[in-house]
């Protein structure tokens, strides 16, 4: 079976316009979640991680004079353009492309001529911009999309359909999704606090990211980072409520470990989904306990980015790659006191320690779950 390496990445988020800028902010425990007053999204003040339009325009301006793109298109095009600029050897024309998004340009649904609201319009925009022969494929699988897109990219490389895959992820903080999560009474009145006793729901965020998956070990930078296991499993339980037994997540973790030929005690660190809703975090704690991972250091990055939907698991996997490269762990921002019924080892301060293997998990509406094993293998 061919091996699949995480060769490089970029993140475009409220915490910066490069992965390195994002990492600096994580090191400083700075959050992108702020008090937002923006009438186009919500009539009153709320907490969310919004990407500043002017900063985005400035960053976009260094790549293109064409301002006729939507905000999400600029974010995604910028992430890919930067990835290509960083890696002259990466040929986008020979690479497979998977775009992970839950709602795309959903803010355009309000407008009369709203063809941009079709998810496929993003694929066409990316195709046209980079003059690609084929239209990229879109994956829309709720909040696990970004992690599942990496898993699918890995499987396509292993099956020799491609030597290189570019995974692009992105979603907006829109009135559409915010109103929906408010209707579920799932939005926190304060910045979200994953796994904490005082958690009161999610904060939404927006971001885009791009990652290069390669079959060639020579494309690795500094250390060799490999995706050695992946699995998804459905809870078969409820379309919006997390499983009480964590069944699907438990099953995905076990399958991913099995593929990587590892057991749970080999995992040095878990970068969890941790949305900070009462039921989600509880479900994850149960699944991690069932998997023998209660003592493994764990964090959620939602306290930094908010929940960026289709981008979240991609961004969290990218950060995991850099945690492996730099041997560092980041505190789970917002956490004060354990607030789940099963013990888990939430990281409360940043630290430097040697880590070899990370478990990345995500769960979403529709009962879907994904687990990835990301390893430093050289």
């Amino acid at each position, binding site marked *: 079976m061919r091996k699949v390496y995480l060769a490089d990445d970029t993140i475009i988020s409220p915490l910066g316009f490069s992965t390195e800028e994002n990492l600096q902010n994580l090191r400083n425990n700075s959050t992108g979640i702020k008090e937002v007053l923006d009438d186009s999204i919500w009539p009153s003040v709320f907490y969310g991680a919004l990407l500043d339009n002017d900063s985005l325009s400035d960053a976009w301006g260094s790549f293109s004079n064409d301002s006729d793109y939507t905000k999400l298109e600029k974010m995604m095009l910028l992430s890919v353009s930067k990835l290509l600029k960083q890696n002259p050897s990466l040929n986008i024309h020979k690479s497979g492309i998977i775009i992970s998004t839950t709602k795309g340009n959903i803010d355009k649904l309000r407008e009369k001529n709203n063809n941009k609201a079709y998810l496929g319009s993003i694929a066409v925009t990316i195709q046209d911009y980079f003059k690609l022969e084929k239209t990229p494929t879109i994956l829309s699988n709720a909040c696990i999309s970004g992690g599942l897109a990496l898993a699918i990219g890995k499987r396509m490389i292993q099956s020799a359909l491609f030597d290189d895959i570019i995974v692009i992820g992105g979603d907006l903080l829109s009135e*559409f999704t915010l109103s929906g999560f408010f209707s579920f009474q799932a939005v926190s009145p304060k910045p979200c606090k994953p796994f904490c006793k005082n958690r009161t729901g999610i904060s939404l965020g927006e971001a885009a990211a791009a990652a290069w998956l390669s079959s060639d070990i020579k494309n690795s930078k500094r250390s060799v980072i490999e995706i050695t296991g992946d699995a998804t499993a459905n809870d078969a339980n409820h379309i919006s409520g997390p499983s009480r037994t964590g069944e699907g997540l438990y099953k995905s973790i076990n399958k991913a470990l099995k593929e990587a030929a590892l057991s749970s005690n080999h995992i040095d660190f878990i970068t969890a989904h941790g949305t900070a809703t009462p039921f989600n975090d509880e479900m994850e704690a149960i699944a991690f306990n069932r998997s023998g991972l209660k003592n493994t250091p764990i964090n959620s990055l939602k306290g930094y980015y908010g929940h960026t939907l289709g981008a979240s698991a991609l961004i969290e996997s990218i950060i995991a790659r850099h945690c492996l490269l730099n041997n560092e762990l980041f505190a789970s921002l917002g956490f004060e006191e354990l607030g789940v019924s099963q013990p888990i080892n939430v990281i409360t301060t940043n630290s430097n320690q040697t880590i070899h293997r990370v478990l990345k998990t995500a769960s979403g509406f529709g009962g879907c779950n994904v687990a990835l094993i990301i390893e430093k293998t050289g």
Partner: protein
Amino acid sequence: MSGKEYYISNFCTIRNGCVFKNGKLIYKDITSESLKDFSKNIYKFMELNYSKFHKMDELCKLGFLASEVVLQNEENVDEDTALVFSNRASSLDTDRKHQHTIEDREQFFPSPAIFVYTLPNIIMGEISIRNNMKSENAFFVTETFQPHFISNYSEILMNTGKASSVICGWVDLDSNKYDVFLALLSTKGIRRLTKEELSKLYNQ
């Protein structure tokens, strides 16, 4: 990669007021005035008794009904039957309904019962619950049905042991225009799985 042989064991098409199983017309209803009535009539025709059906949005109902046809008379539905679905319009039909509830700030009434269906993969959640499938799910959005990509990806899942069988296909709904094609892929059957065969069955 093991080169096992796979088959298209069953397939279902729902199109133009007709339901086909393995290419044979099993139900026709060109009199229903709404898609809602059409789906309800198929439900009755199939003598289903599943109360969750009535809460589903129209896209889910179509995918659910096609999955029922495909799995009809299958004795054991394996827990590891993966779902690999695709369409063009994602969940736009229900997105528009949610948008309607937030269009006017003076009359603002977003509802969780609608919002939860603004994700296309919810169909696969519904089918997983119905059949107790704790399996691989993936929902792709493409301009047209991509038999090459879908059969490749489904074969990868079976070849790597990530799934024992796969229900794959196309479930699209946009402004009352619908097009549904689901196929059960497994090691049993008479129609060899190839992208040409999948394409032929979709187009027939």
